[in-house]
């Protein structure tokens, strides 16, 4: 029902999107409705939220709404949405694709909102936008919104959100640094140059300073010693190219010199990816090629025409990269190794040592345990490392102790403290953050590293507190914001879905269940007839198989589970085997259970058929035969009552089962027991009369039968089967 509703809403949103783009005069109304739906949609309704964002993304990012004025006028409305999805939603597991779309939307609207703020100042909205912006900028260059591992590894994670963030940083730099041209093209170059000196809250110097810091942070990442993934490297380069045109005086020199000086082979591989040599070689090759393309543009588009000296250096670098690429191609990428050059090797070694001195890393430095178990609290290594599967408890204690002592002797104090601090933080998070740690998870796209909860830093919390204060202190603040109680923010609550068992797991668990039931048989049960019991007896329509628990009740449960409760035949047969094995251990004293179980087997076999005859190779016949085979050899003459009871209460007997009495009749010591059983069957089970007489006849005609046996058979036949 819910999914029908969802798909209906999705269709409606798609129709609305088409309408908005075909008839932009409806855009404002549709945008308002879409934002309301998106904010009113629980976070677990990811597809609905995504569809809402898709409309806004297309309108602003893809500029499906062509009118600059219309986009600009409506841009301020997205602040509320971004604030909700990025700041307010942050405590829950933010969905990766939602966050990426949000960053792109902020990128597409930042300059438009800025322009609105210049023309129609609204300090509250600007504050709110600044909070969102500052929060996102604080995440650069982390693995946001994925849970972090360590700074080096995180550079290669969450690439899509990172590239979106780089483009956003580029846009912020462009807007917050003054435009170079005097004739301002409003649509293409919105900047702080537009701010009037008497603007109530936009301060040119503050904004420019932030932009300059952001530019420095981009260069800092580029100049870092760690090799950047190609997608990040090319995205920064592409952003730099844009800024090179629009804000040349702030970065021209730095950018040109970076392109000239870039040497992928001098970069060191992220610490935990060094074994992946081919991947690292490829990334270096790709980055070098991008650098070569940039040099080619700078050389061929006349950027270096005024400085012949610089041009020559660029030409030399270009030729060097061409030769390097040719060399790689000739040798084959799999056979090239930069570290063959002793000078390069030495430089990299020094860099690695310097970094290691200053910065000890564990692969998994997350301050939040990734799942609610002890393993994840202590795990500091790669999640896919085979070592994570190793069961330390299997190591003898003395070896474990010596391992720990050796480790403690070898590790530096600082690294040990860092490792213990991470573990401590995880404990603290699990024990203090009752919101998610011990109460299951909120329904989001399945629990994963792509949507794991991220903790807010102290700075961020301050930011939110400020935001909330601003909201409550402003009479005109949007009412929708104030309507979100904590409960609503939590969304639908679900217990985590357990992993599905394999067949072997199921067998293992089934074995445990059976063993537990068998243990119950050994316990004395205090008889307690409840009033409920009498009422049940009065009402036949409500008869229950077990109204009071007794020592034998478990047989009823297990036999019914085997015959009617398990769809998987293999599991059902496992259970039958376990039941039989239990009876086999002491058949004499457990005959009641045997009879009850075999009756259940018979009933379940014939209840869906019209006849009374079970299958020859069915479970009933098989286990009847097993039972007799296991019982008869151990019967003694004194077991007359027990055996006759069994033969009388088994619901179905045929010739093959009755013939098993032959061994009793032929045994001189227990012959009486055999004939008494036959006599009982002849007299009280007419359906098996002929089978009994047949057995007597067979024994009479059997040459191996002695005279006494033949006489006995003859007497019985004369009396009960004169026609035989």
């Amino acid at each position, binding site marked *: 029902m819910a999914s029908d509703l969802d798909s209906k809403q999705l269709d409606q949103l798609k129709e609305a999107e088409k309408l908005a783009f075909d008839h932009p005069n409806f855009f404002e109304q549709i945008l308002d409705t879409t934002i309301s739906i998106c904010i009113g949609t629980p976070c677990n309704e990811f597809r609905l939220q995504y569809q809402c964002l898709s409309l806004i993304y297309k309108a602003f990012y893809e500029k499906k709404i062509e009118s600059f004025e219309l986009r600009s006028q409506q841009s301020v409305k997205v602040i509320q949405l971004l604030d909700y999805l990025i700041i307010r939603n942050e405590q829950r597991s933010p969905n990766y694709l939602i966050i990426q779309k949000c960053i792109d939307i902020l990128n597409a609207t930042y300059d438009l909102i800025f322009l609105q703020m210049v023309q129609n100042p609204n300090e509250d909205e600007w504050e709110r936008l600044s909070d969102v912006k500052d929060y996102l900028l604080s995440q650069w260059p982390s693995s946001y919104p994925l849970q972090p591992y360590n700074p080096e590894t995180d550079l290669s994670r969450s690439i899509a959100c990172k590239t979106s963030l780089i483009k956003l940083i580029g846009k912020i730099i462009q807007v917050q640094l003054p435009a170079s041209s005097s004739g301002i093209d409003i649509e293409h170059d919105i900047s702080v140059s537009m701010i009037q000196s008497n603007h109530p809250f936009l301060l040119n110097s503050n904004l420019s300073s932030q932009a300059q810091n952001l530019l420095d942070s981009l260069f800092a990442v580029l100049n870092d010693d760690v090799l950047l993934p190609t997608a990040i490297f090319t995205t920064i380069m592409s952003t730099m190219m844009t800024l090179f045109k629009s804000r040349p005086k702030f970065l021209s020199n730095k950018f040109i010199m970076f392109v000239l000086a870039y040497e992928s082979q001098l970069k060191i591989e992220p610490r935990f990816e060094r074994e992946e040599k081919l991947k690292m070689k490829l990334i270096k090759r790709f980055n070098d090629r991008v650098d070569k393309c940039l040099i080619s543009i700078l050389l061929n588009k006349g950027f270096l025409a005024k400085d012949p000296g610089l041009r020559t250096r660029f030409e030399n670098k270009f030729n060097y990269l061409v030769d390097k690429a040719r060399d790689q191609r000739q040798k084959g990428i799999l056979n090239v190794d930069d570290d063959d050059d002793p000078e390069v090797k030495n430089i990299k070694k020094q860099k690695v040592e310097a970094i290691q001195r200053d910065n000890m890393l564990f692969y998994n430095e997350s301050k939040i345990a990734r799942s609610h178990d002890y393993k994840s609290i202590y795990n500091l290594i790669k999640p896919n490392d085979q070592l994570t599967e190793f069961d330390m408890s299997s190591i003898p204690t003395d070896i474990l102790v010596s391992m720990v002592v050796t480790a403690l002797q070898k590790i530096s104090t600082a690294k040990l403290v860092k490792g213990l601090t991470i573990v401590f933080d995880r404990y603290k998070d699990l024990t203090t953050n009752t919101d998610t740690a011990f109460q299951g998870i909120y329904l989001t796209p399945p629990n994963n*590293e792509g949507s794991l909860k991220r903790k807010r830093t102290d700075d961020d919390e301050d930011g939110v507190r400020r935001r909330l204060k601003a909201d409550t202190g402003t009479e005109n603040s949007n009412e929708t914001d104030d309507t979100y109680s904590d409960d609503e923010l939590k969304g639908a609550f679900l217990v985590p879905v357990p992993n599905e068992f394999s067949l072997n797991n199921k067998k293992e668990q089934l074995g445990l269940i059976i063993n537990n039931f068998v243990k119950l048989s050994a316990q004395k049960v205090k008889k307690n007839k409840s009033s409920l019991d009498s009422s049940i007896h009065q009402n036949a329509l409500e008869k229950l198989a077990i109204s009071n628990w007794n020592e034998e009740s478990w047989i009823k449960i297990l036999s019914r589970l085997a015959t009617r409760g398990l769809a998987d035949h293999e599991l059902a047969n496992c259970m039958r085997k376990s039941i039989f094995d239990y009876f086999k251990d002491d058949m004499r004293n457990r005959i009641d259970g045997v009879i009850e179980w075999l009756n259940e087997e018979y009933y379940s076999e014939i209840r869906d058929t019209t006849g009374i005859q079970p299958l020859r190779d069915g479970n009933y016949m098989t286990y009847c035969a097993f039972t007799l085979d296991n019982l008869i050899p151990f019967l003694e003459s004194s077991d007359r009552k027990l055996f006759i009871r069994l033969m009388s209460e088994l619901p179905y007997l045929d010739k093959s089962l009755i013939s098993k009495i032959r061994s009793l009749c032929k045994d001189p010591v227990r012959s009486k027991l055999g004939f008494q059983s036959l006599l009982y069957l002849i007299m009280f089970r007419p359906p098996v009369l002929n089978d009994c007489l047949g057995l007597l006849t067979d024994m009479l005609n059997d040459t191996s039968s002695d005279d006494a046996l033949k006489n006995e058979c003859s007497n019985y036949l004369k009396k009960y089967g004169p026609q035989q």
Partner: protein
Amino acid sequence: MEAHKVLKDAGYTVRSYGTGTSVRLPGPTIDQPNVFEFGTPYTKILEKLNTQDLKIHKANGVLDMTKRNIGIKKAPERWPYYNQPPQRLPPSEYPEFENELDFQVVITCEERCFDSVVEDFFSRNYFEPSQTQQAVHCFNVEIRDEHKSALAGAQAILDLARMLSDAHAKSLEDFSAPPFEDKIPDIITEWQQNHPVTPVLYALCYH
């Protein structure tokens, strides 16, 4: 064009361009290549070839290649370089494309073509700063320009396309999987291991 055909047959939405200034095919002699402008229909190219020494064109495979190309598209097109006059088929030929650069992935078959494409994207970043938001993953799969290599190279490109599209589809279906873009370096590495003699290049560009 072999790669275009193989990808199209595999169900991908494909568009192909040349990056040079004109279409050059072997002519009657080594120093007399057949040169055509982009946009010249393959039927006209075939007509011209038919007027020349057919034995040579059959031997070097140009005749068969042109006939094959007629079944793929009407005419060769030139990469839509920034600020250069278009030499391409009308948009009505490609209703599934919003514009001539409406790609998620661009695959070139020679390093110089890769350079041309990446440089063009960087030029757009510089000259059209307000229009450079759409990401496109650019790859080069180096293929020697002869028939046999083209057949093998097209299959290698199809392998790459499948690995990328499978990973992309999985990331949309299964939110527990790592995001698609995070998997690209591993996909390229795996692909390169499977095709060690075909050097690959990659860049993430914007237009």
